[in-house]
């Protein structure tokens, strides 16, 4: 038998043995027989010395090839055993994922907070800052500075809740001018006054927050509710800037199909004054029960800041002009989610709170 035949035979027998093995243990036991010095191929290596010099290279190559083939056969089988054993292991770990006992631990922000944050984000995107102020206010900030002196007939538009702070307050007719009425702000406009008092124009800010009215709670009124107001004071600000800003806000908040429009109105703190309507979000302008078939719903009030308000805050109304607007936050939330009764938002029933 030539040396080549011996190599071929040794290779075939080694591979044959590998293929006989049926578990990892036997394979490991076989390894010395396959690769050790005492293995058949290992034995043939020792014969290299007896091979002719001219044949050496060819025999060596044949021997190496045979060894490589045996290793490969071994590796393949070994891999198969590993894969099988892993598969068995994984099978023992099989899990019904719908058996999970973990409870969701996610809480919820109140619908009013969610709405307020969404509104703030839209205005921040439009270049506004967000301003805040106290909920208990003086008569000056809530009314007088806003061009609503005591005895102004338009004060009856606001059913005001006053605070009893003992000797420091009096609910007078305001004619004395000494005692200060302390009240719960009826709108967030006092924040506008505070901003104008302490910041030189230009001013681009929104004032979201809680406001109070002496209203009996019903499906559409609460004595405690939330508003957001906006204020812009700059050079050359006009009614068209107001209309444009509200348009931009409306599209950003409600979506492109919803537009806004202005209608003349009256507020003591603005002149010219306007109501602003938006396309009915239910019917998108087609006319439905919600909008009383007009295609529009009234959202809030706005106008050019009254020169008296500017001068009350030390701003020269010849140099600077501005606009302000405001609307209710709670109502937006009701509209968006189809809630029929405002009171439901404030029962704090978790079955309500967890829905949003």
């Amino acid at each position, binding site marked *: 038998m030539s040396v080549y035949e011996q190599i071929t035979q040794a290779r075939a027998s080694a591979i044959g043995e590998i293929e006989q093995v049926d578990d990892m243990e036997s394979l490991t036991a076989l390894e010395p027989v396959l690769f050790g010095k005492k293995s058949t191929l290992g034995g043939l290596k020792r014969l290299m010395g007896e091979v002719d010099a001219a044949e050496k290279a060819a025999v060596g190559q044949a021997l190496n090839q045979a060894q490589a083939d045996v290793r490969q056969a071994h590796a393949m089988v070994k891999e198969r055993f590993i894969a099988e054993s892993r598969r068995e292991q994984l099978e023992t770990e099989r899990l019904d994922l719908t058996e999970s006992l973990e409870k969701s631990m996610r809480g919820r922000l109140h619908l009013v907070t969610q709405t307020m944050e969404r509104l703030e984000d839209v205005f921040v995107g439009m270049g506004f800052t*967000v301003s*805040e102020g106290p909920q208990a206010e*003086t008569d000056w900030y809530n009314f007088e500075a806003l061009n609503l002196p005591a005895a102004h007939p338009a004060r009856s538009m606001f059913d005001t809740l*006053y605070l009893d702070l003992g000797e420091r307050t009096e609910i007078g007719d305001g004619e004395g001018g000494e005692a200060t009425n302390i009240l719960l702000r009826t709108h967030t406009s006092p924040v506008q006054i505070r901003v104008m008092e302490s910041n030189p124009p230009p001013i681009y800010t929104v004032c979201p927050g809680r406001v109070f009215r002496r209203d009996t709670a019903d499906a559409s009124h609460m004595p405690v509710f939330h508003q957001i107001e906006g204020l812009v004071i700059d050079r050359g600000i006009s009614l068209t800037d107001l209309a444009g800003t509200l348009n931009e806000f409306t599209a950003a908040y409600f979506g492109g199909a919803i537009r806004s429009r202005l209608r003349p109105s009256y507020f003591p703190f603005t002149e010219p004054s306007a109501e602003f309507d938006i396309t009915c979000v239910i019917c998108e302008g087609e006319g439905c029960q919600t909008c009383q078939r007009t295609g529009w719903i009234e959202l809030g009030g706005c106008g050019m800041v009254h020169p008296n308000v500017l001068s009350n805050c030390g701003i020269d109304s010849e140099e600077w002009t501005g606009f302000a607007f405001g609307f209710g936050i709670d109502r937006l939330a009701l509209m968006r989610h189809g809630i029929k009764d405002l009171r439901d938002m404030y029962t704090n029933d978790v079955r309500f709170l967890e829905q949003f």
Partner: protein
Amino acid sequence: MKVLLSWLREFAPIEGDPYELADHMSDLGMAVEETRPLNPLKGVVVARVASLRPHPEADRIQLVDVEVEPGNPVQVCCGAFNMSEGDLIPFATIGTVMPDGMEIAQRKMRGELSNGMCCSAAELHLGADHDGIMILPQELQVGASLMEQLGLVGDVLWDLEINPNRPDAMSVAGVARDLAARLNVPFEIPDWSVPVVEAREADLVSIHVEDEELCPRFTARVIRGVTVEKSPLWMQMRLTLLGMRPINSVVDVSNYVMLELGTPNHTYDLSLVPNGHIGVRRATDGEKISTLDDQERTLLSGDGIIVNEESAPIGIAGVMGGASTEISESTEAVLLELASWESESIARTSQRLGLRSEASARFERGTDWRLNVNAVERFCFLLSEISSGEIEIVGEVLDVHGALQETGPVSVRTSRISLLLGREFTSAEIRELLLPIGFDVETTDEEDIQLVTVPSFRPDTETETDIAEEVARHYGYSSLGTRVPRSPDAGRLTAQQKMRRMIRQIMIGSGLVEAMPNPFLAPGDVSKAGLSVANPVQLLNPLAVEESVLRPSLLPGLLTSAAYNYSHRNTGLRLFETGAIFLASDDPTSSLPDESEQLAALLTDSDAAHAVGLLRELGDGLKVELTLINADDLPGLHPTRGARICIGEEEIGSVGEIDPVILERFEIEDRCAWLDLRLDGLIEAAIAGSGVAYQPVSTFPSSDVDLAFVVDEEVQASAVEQTLRRAAGDELQGLQLFDVFRSDQMAQGSRSLAFSLKLQAKDRTLTDEEVGGVRQRCIQAVETSHKATLRS
């Protein structure tokens, strides 16, 4: 304010689609709340009541034989009892679709057939009256269409919302003026002059106005030979449709003139005004008057009153007349009053007495003194037109006034109007917009400046800015265009606002749901929640006593919310709130109460450890080191399960469990964990801590040391932790309490606290000696500081 197309058309030739006209009115600032083309009411006819019979089986309904064709009555069951045989009534025949959509069908009521329906004014949408069947005047034609007979077919009724600055629009004529200007059609107040007679001695009247501020103008006239009767149907219909109830010819004309011109007026039976003496003054406190509605009213100083020659009140100025001079069927001579009143005084008085009326609503906005004489003429013209007999109008019009307030012209810059409205107007454009609504415009030498005289029916318009609004209104707000201004600065939230949002996110990330309880409390709620607040802030004019205190803490509100949920079987609550609390200020210079924003959380069916865990989430999330000091005296908290929360030395809140006594009061049967802290304090600390300097991560191996000590129960675990921290020094990378163990084997009143320390140096591997040294220092420090012993 409601207006009727046919009435508007008496002042201007207004044409167009009712809904388009509505859009114009809304766009002019007179928001249309309803447009109602008057329905021809097909099937509703004039019918005669032929006979009335009791229903054999029912007391609450009767049988009416109704004649639509003479001699051919049909039987109807009717629940009203106000008609008599021979009356004419509106009758809905079978098949009629009523304004509310109901279809009239033949029905059987308690065994009797009903072949149609007798209608009330409300059922026909012709007025508010639904108490009885509408009784029609006898001159109507039986069997004919009701709406045709009433002359209402084709008419349109609009309901307008008029703002307080538009006294002029509180009248049919005023609305017509505004709308005519928009439609570019002429507007005119017709000539209402009437033939007059000489005054006789009995007609002599004298007016004495003591307070010209209260009453700038008092105009009066005597009309005699008056027969007080029913006014004609057309007038009754107009009054009814505009929301007033027809009374008699004199009162109806009075109301008609008010609605038409916006000039409230009053009529006296002259024979009941001794010597025709009328005085005007302010009341003194406690004066009494019995008003037209037969109520006795007590007056206060400042109220305007009309008095007789004995200075006794016979009317409350601008609010309601007195019963003593009321028009009755026997009235022959009428004294007509057309007065202008101080609007604030009328507003105050009518509000206080709860007597808001169509008249007071107009006086509050301010009426047009210039119209007084026109209105007197209109009254006389109408009364003579509708009277069945001849009336005699005394020629003399008494007109008492001081210097009437004429407003001087306002200087208006075209450039300023353009700036405010954001569109370049020319002076001519401004003129053309203002002239049709009664403003007078004069040009000046300066191209930019015009002098604008405001008409007396627009007392709200005083300044250049006010005039800008008029220009904008008639140009059309929506025609001005749009533009978006840009802030020179970037929009942003403040660091505080961002941190507040982050705190809320941490709370919801920890599974808490945000609640918004009522900030108003009942007086007992504060102590019910175990709090003692010396003087909580009270409301001066609460709606109800249950809502008369401003919360001094978030605890009562969240407990109430939890109790509400428990009563609805929602348990295992995790609620939080951020909101303002109010306390009377200690600072005598502060007029406002102290207001601070709090963060509170209430976890039901949870013990104090859960609240501490939540607090730790908060501290970790915000990188704020919050330390706890156990305390037995925290209001509302479990006496042995509470701690103060501190940042450094500053106390910012409390944590623990709610006192079980309080939970019982709120009927919450589970333990409740509680956390309450000052949000501003937390936010400031979080902002301060947000810029920490980077500490390079050590690349050398770390060593772990576990130490367990038996420590007296009196010693806070956090104190031991502090001691370990100090003793371990710079190499301490981590420290964690990992086990608490109590057992009988240990001395009474003590427990084992096991800590794991992780030691690591920045620049080298710690040697066993070094680690041993630290271990020894830690043991020694804890043993000496806390009388603790190492557990081996």
